[in-house]
């Protein structure tokens, strides 16, 4: 057992923190909420120059070849500052999925472009009537028998950065067995395809999420990712990586909330003393510390298991269920401790409080993940009950 970051990871963490502190202040986060694109191209290119987009992409495809733990450390720092960039979507939902399930041709085409920052991707998964998951996907892909092309029709919701996505990873129904495991295929769809239209969804966090309509969208057979009706396995594993990546960002965000609230409690004087000297405030902050650290431990362990190729469904869901509660609870207590200043929109805290709800819904809420764990628990056999 070795729970330390190695030297490179420490360096990555420090350089990411320094860089983001300078390049991604809260003013940029606010500005991007108003901005049509919703991300700073300048920041994006600088991140690419630092090699971040290629961090987990193998060297042969233009990346650095690091593993998921390294990515988690980087994402934690991005979460600290609520970096408004389509990083998770492009690198994890897009790049890592292509790396895991794509053909050699697809890898050669997409991965170097992702690594260099010239390609933005987004996952088109959720649909009307679905909150999260792979069940009841209605978007359909049908094959044109003559040319072999696919035609996709359907509506996707909550697709992040859809308006700037160069490619979508679209989950579509191609089979009719009634079992999601056998009916889904994945498609890499060019964002400029004329059948695609995007409309912005106004969310609590003013982030960039879209309704995306696929209307007779033609896709070349070579852009199917994995085999026909073979999408489920690839996307299931991809979603586990996305869940953990989302957790890492939430850990960073919750750490920042705890830190700013602790600082505030030390400085804010009421009744002639810092409010942080009152036990009622101390105990809230102590509970936040317990929860935030717990979220980090659970996230790191699940990331480690994923990077080792170990079965990890329970651990991933445990991390997300806990991270959701942690980030939301941290924000709720932080608002209370900050009092009037905390509800002032010029203050940074509301940015986090609003983002906590978006993050909690992304890749499954706590109820979803607790149910996943329960399913695993009930499927276990007699003497292998314990986790270890």
């Amino acid at each position, binding site marked *: *057992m070795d729970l330390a970051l190695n030297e490179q990871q420490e360096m990555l963490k420090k350089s990411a923190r320094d860089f983001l502190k300078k390049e991604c202040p809260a003013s940029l986060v606010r500005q991007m909420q108003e901005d049509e694109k919703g991300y700073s191209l300048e920041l994006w290119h600088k991140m690419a120059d630092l090699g971040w987009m290629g961090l987990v992409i193998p060297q042969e495809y233009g990346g650095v070849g690091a593993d998921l733990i390294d990515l988690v450390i980087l994402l934690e720092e991005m979460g600290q500052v609520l970096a408004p960039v389509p990083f998770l979507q492009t690198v994890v939902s897009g790049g890592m999925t292509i790396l895991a399930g794509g053909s050699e041709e697809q890898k050669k085409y997409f991965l170097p472009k992702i690594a260099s920052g010239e390609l933005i991707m987004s996952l088109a998964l959720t649909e009307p009537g679905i909150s999260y998951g792979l069940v009841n996907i209605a978007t359909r892909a049908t094959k044109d028998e003559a040319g072999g092309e696919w035609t996709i029709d359907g509506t996707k919701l909550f697709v992040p950065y859809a308006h700037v996505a160069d490619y979508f990873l679209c989950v579509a129904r191609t089979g009719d067995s009634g079992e999601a495991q056998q009916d889904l295929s994945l498609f890499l769809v060019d964002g400029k395809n004329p059948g695609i239209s995007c409309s912005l969804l106004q969310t609590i966090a003013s982030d960039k999420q879209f309704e995306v309509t696929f209307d007779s969208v033609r896709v070349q057979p070579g852009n199917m990712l994995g085999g026909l009706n073979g999408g489920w396995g690839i996307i299931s594993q991809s979603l586990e990586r996305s869940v953990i990546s989302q957790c890492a960002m939430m850990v960073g965000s919750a750490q920042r909330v705890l830190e700013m609230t602790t600082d505030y409690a030390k400085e804010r004087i009421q009744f002639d003393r810092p409010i942080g000297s009152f036990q009622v405030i101390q105990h809230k902050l*102590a509970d936040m510390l317990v929860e935030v*650290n717990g979220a980090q431990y659970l996230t790191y362990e699940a990331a480690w298991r994923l990077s080792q190729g170990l079965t990890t469904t329970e651990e991933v869901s445990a991390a997300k269920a806990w991270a959701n509660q942690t980030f939301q609870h941290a924000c709720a207590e932080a608002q209370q401790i900050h009092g009037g200043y905390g509800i002032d929109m010029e203050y940074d805290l509301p940015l986090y409080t609003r983002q906590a709800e978006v993050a909690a819904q992304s890749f499954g809420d706590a109820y979803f993940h607790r149910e996943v764990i329960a399913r695993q628990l009930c499927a276990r056999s007699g003497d292998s009950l314990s986790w270890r």
Partner: protein
Amino acid sequence: MDFGFTAEEEAFYREVQDFLKNEVTEELIKETEPGPGPGPHSRAFDRKMGARGWYCITLPKEYGGLGASYVKRFIMDDELTYHRASAVMKVAARIVAPTLLHHGTEEQKQYYLPRIARGEIEFALGYTEPQAGSDLGALRIRATEDGGDYIINGQKVFNTGTHHADYIWLLARTDPSAPRHRGISLFIVDAKTPGINLRPLWVIDGERTNEVFYDDVRVPGKNMVGEKNRGFYVVVSALAFERAYASGGVRRIFDELVEYARNNTRNGVLIADDPVVRQELGQMAVEVRLAQLIGYRIAWLCDQGITPEWQAPVSKLFVTELMQRIARVGFHILGPYALLEEDSKWAQLRGKISQLYRHGIRRTISGGTSEIQRNTIAARGLGLPRK
């Protein structure tokens, strides 16, 4: 970063499991449950642990330990508690040994440590007094110098294990004129010394604890641990924070609840199919896992030479409050059957849920209340001011 066991840790884990499969009996388990205290089976079990060097494995070899890592110790503690071979923390191995190692004289080390390592002697804490609970600095019991000895007079309360311990790890006031935290010294008192009288106190989970009366109890001066009037600081020093609370107990009862839900129906429906129960089990699974990760994190920090000043209170807080949360889920799953005592015809899970609930209440109080743990976490983990 590597959350897995090394080959050596894995081998040790297997060895501990094999040992426990052979040695843990129903009689032993019965003795470790809250009640009158350890009996002959516990004593025999402790000696067997001691013979392997496992009773206090982190002690250096020269004092009879194995010089093993804290991670190994946590592996063992976690399995011991999972197998219900040890419900309570061993005071001698967990508090006395590390403190003596750092603050004891060589003579004290030679005299006590090897016997602790062999599992031959046990200590009881003598801290709490009627007016000094969370506020330990308010203790009044007096130790008056007399020649080279000290004479102890006064009263302690809620001193668990004093009735079967060989020694008492006693805090007493040696300078009433000094500021209150600076007039306290730490003593090792032979429990058989004349003048010590006990009155049993039975607490909510069925555990026996004691009122202890000291009437002219003579203690040799060489039994003082650390400097005179520095006892309070010795007790609350870093060494007291070496403890990671083993999570095996909560893991075990959780596993039993899952099994129960999978195999029993209520109102005609399999309990494990109830969506509310499934949410609760999902949540408890997360927290049981986290309790274990917190423990391993602390053990690993200790192995790095880092004092887990606020992480150890986190472990105490989280594991003991988790006991109450699991009991709450257990009450939901078992319904009114959870109310029944073990001997009842209709009792389920041998009455363990109501027992856990009562035990959880005791454990969030004893060894420092949850509120005191949160104070420590706030002060040491976040640097929040006292005033």
